[in-house]
């Protein structure tokens, strides 16, 4: 499943970077992830409850922030396992300052499914990807305005 998205956020890159590096915020904006617990530098235990369409599942696994170049880019690696299949995602996040108050946040990556999710999900995968993308940016805007 290809995951790409691009969105302009009304905040300077440093603010957005700080939010993304904060596990509490990262957990809030990343769709599905309900909790991140720090395991080691940049590596979190991740708990997710995903409810998309006909699928409602509990996932457990890891999330890792790698290749961090503040405040420009990092790679978010997520490994999530569940009874109905596993998700392995590698997403490159890029922050591009547009002005002092605006930043373009984009991501590009892919998520590999295994198990039942891979076998039966083909028909709806692009819907899942687009929904996750929308949720991510919406969550981010909500967080920004809450921090506002």
């Amino acid at each position, binding site marked *: 499943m290809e995951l790409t998205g691009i969105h302009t956020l009304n905040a300077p890159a440093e603010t957005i970077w700080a939010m993304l590096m904060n596990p509490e915020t990262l957990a809030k904006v990343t769709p599905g992830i309900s909790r991140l617990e720090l395991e080691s530098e940049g590596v979190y235990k991740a708990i997710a409850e995903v409810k998309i369409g006909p699928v409602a599942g509990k996932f457990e696994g890891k999330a890792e922030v790698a290749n961090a170049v503040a405040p420009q880019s990092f790679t978010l690696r997520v490994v999530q396992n569940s009874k109905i299949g596993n998700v*392995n995602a590698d997403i490159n996040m890029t922050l591009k300052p547009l002005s002092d108050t605006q930043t373009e946040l984009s991501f590009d990556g892919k998520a*590999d499914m*295994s198990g039942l999710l*891979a*076998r*039966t999900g*083909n028909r709806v995968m692009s819907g899942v990807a687009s929904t996750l993308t929308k949720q991510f940016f919406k969550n981010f805007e909500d967080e920004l305005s809450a921090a506002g």
Partner: protein
Amino acid sequence: MGNGGLIIMSNKFIGKSVKRVEDKRFITGKGRYTDDINLPGMTHAYILRSPYAHARIKSIDTSAAAAMQGVVTIMTGDEVGHYGVPCGWQVNFKNGDIMKEPPHPLLVKDKVRHVGDAVAMVVAESREIAQDAAEAIVVDYEVLPAITDASKAVEAGAPLVHDDVPNNICFDWEIGNPKAEVDEAMASAAHVTTLEFVNQRVSPNAMEPRSYIGHYDGVYDKYTLYTSTQNPHLIRLLMCAFVLGLPEHKVRVVGPDVGGGFGSKIYHYTEEALVTLAAKKTGRPVKWTETRSEAFLTDAHGRDHVTKAEMGFDGDGKIVGLRIKTFANLGAYLSTFSTAVPTYLHGTLLQGLYTTPKIHLDMTCVFTNTTAVDAYRGAGRPEATYLLERLLDLSALEMGVNPTELRLKNFIPAFDGVTQPGYQTNVALQYDSGNYHGVLHRGLEMLGYEDFRKAQKEAAASGKLLGVGFSTYIEACGIAPSAVVGSLGARAGLYEVGQVRVQPTGKVSVFTGAHSHGQGHETTFAQVVADRLGIPMEDVDIIHGDSDTVAFGMGTYGSRSLAVGGSAIMKSLDKIIEKGAKIAAHKLECSPDDIEFVDGKFTVKGTDKSLGFGDIALTAYVPHVYPANLEPGLDFSSFYDPTNFTYPFGCHIAVVEVDKETGATKVKRFIAVDDVGNVINPMIVDGQIHGGLAQGIGQALLEGVEFDGNGQIINGSYMDYAMPRADDLPMFELDRQVTPCPHNPLGVKGAGEAGCIGSTPAVVNAVIDALWSAGHQVKDIRMPLTSERVWSAMQS
């Protein structure tokens, strides 16, 4: 015994469309398939399978699952991983080295090699508990890169499916004329047509999912395995001698009603051995029935060749050479006959119906991180026919000639195999009898070729794309004789067994080693027996599918049942009649040579003195007035080992309509003229052809297992894997030609796979023809020809 026809019996039933004996139970819901059987105290098994195509198992924790209420036992690779299922056919490398044959364990303990590889089995009081518990097993995997494409798996640096199989090559192999001679012929050709294509992987999808019940009786130290198999005796042989080391006389294998197979139920599957082991371990019957999702991952798939083929023609349109390079995907493990399919069942058919003087196939058989591939309806022959018949139609388009005339020019002339010898091919086989011009001429009559071309032009004017595609095929059925297949690497014989037990009242029980999974043995075999003995069909009972009842057998596949199994029964019938004549001669006070057996009566030739079949049967069991030195009883068993394959052939023609705007393709007409030798029951033969056509058309237009880059099947359910439904198909137009098989007593050739062999290229050729007629000179569209693929081909 060459006969050139049915000279042997009263034809009261033979050749008639007798309604099927077995239907009564099926139409009333009384069929008994394996999953319908429930034994007292039965437990249920669920198998935990790998979600990854390639991963090392770091640990398996079954503790939480084992503690759940209702769990009886849990087995893992630590306990049974040293047992593995074997491959039944050894093929060697070109250089003589023995093929690579890595173990296929019942449960994996080190490394999983395809999605669905079995990791643990839970046995519990109910299906629900077994599944709940399996979900509580924790397996820690280290995921490895996976490879699914056979042609890429051989490249340097590709992931290794088995650490000790270099380049993932199981073996390489060749057949035909020396390569240099073929190269020379191709270099001399006036025209060479080149086709690079994929014969895609398909999933058999018999409607009954596989189901097994293991049972162990401690009192008699006896195992019983109920199994949805095409092949009960072979399963017993393989499981006892090659997997579990059990004595065969202590193991009974029962194949109840079987809901379709199409090849996928020939093989010995790991789960058969697992339920047998679990039954002994728990002391209770253990049932395992797969779900459809599991079937997509574990039932052996079919086809999966990546091919480059070139056909050379001289200036007159005569074929001068055929050169082929193919990579065949065997999947992660060797299935029972998987190594024979791309080689002896494929390479040997590349002569087709043509006089091609020089042929060379270079075949590489490869392991990948995918479900095992084995024989699927036609097994190797559909791939050969697809290759040849696509080349023929495409060559005709490229050379601007009529595709049927191109074929007629290159066909092997007719021969009956009796007064004229069989035809020796350049790829090892000797065809038995054939009249290839006949089937094509008949097909053309039914089509109306010129009328079609007119209609095609008219349709184009009104914005519709019509196309016609041809396919003339030959196949090899009833693979035999044993000595030959043994020399080619088969680890089993390929004869069949037929026992005829005449009961004292003249009723007849027939035991056959063939095993119906829908073909109607109970009817066809009874027609043969009833006519040969001159008795009513209801006096004949056909018994199959139980290794304790039937002496031995090699099962049903490769369109062999009637040609081989029927012939074995015929041998026993001959013995019955011969012995009956001796008894009759004694009672009628004449020489056995003076007795003739006609219409169920033993008659003294030229007189009206006779005894009925029932009288003789009773005498055999109440031998009060009886020849000296003759054993009582009337019960004979025979083994029949054919002298050659049989070679059905035919002509298939598809007419399609392609929606110019969407690429959607509809089969408008399908004409099939098949020659399967003599026909015992035309209704059943037509039914076999119909079913084969549907599967062949399915492969052309709808079916295909798709993998993602990680080896996940992305269409592993009926929601995503398309098969023909009723509204995808037209009524079929069938006709028949009869060229009897000269070397078996029934003169029959086999009809089970023919439909599936000829139809796929006919449909693809028709779509290509439609596109060429609109100016899109497309050489190939990857199967299945989805609407988008056809539409895209029209955009270029």
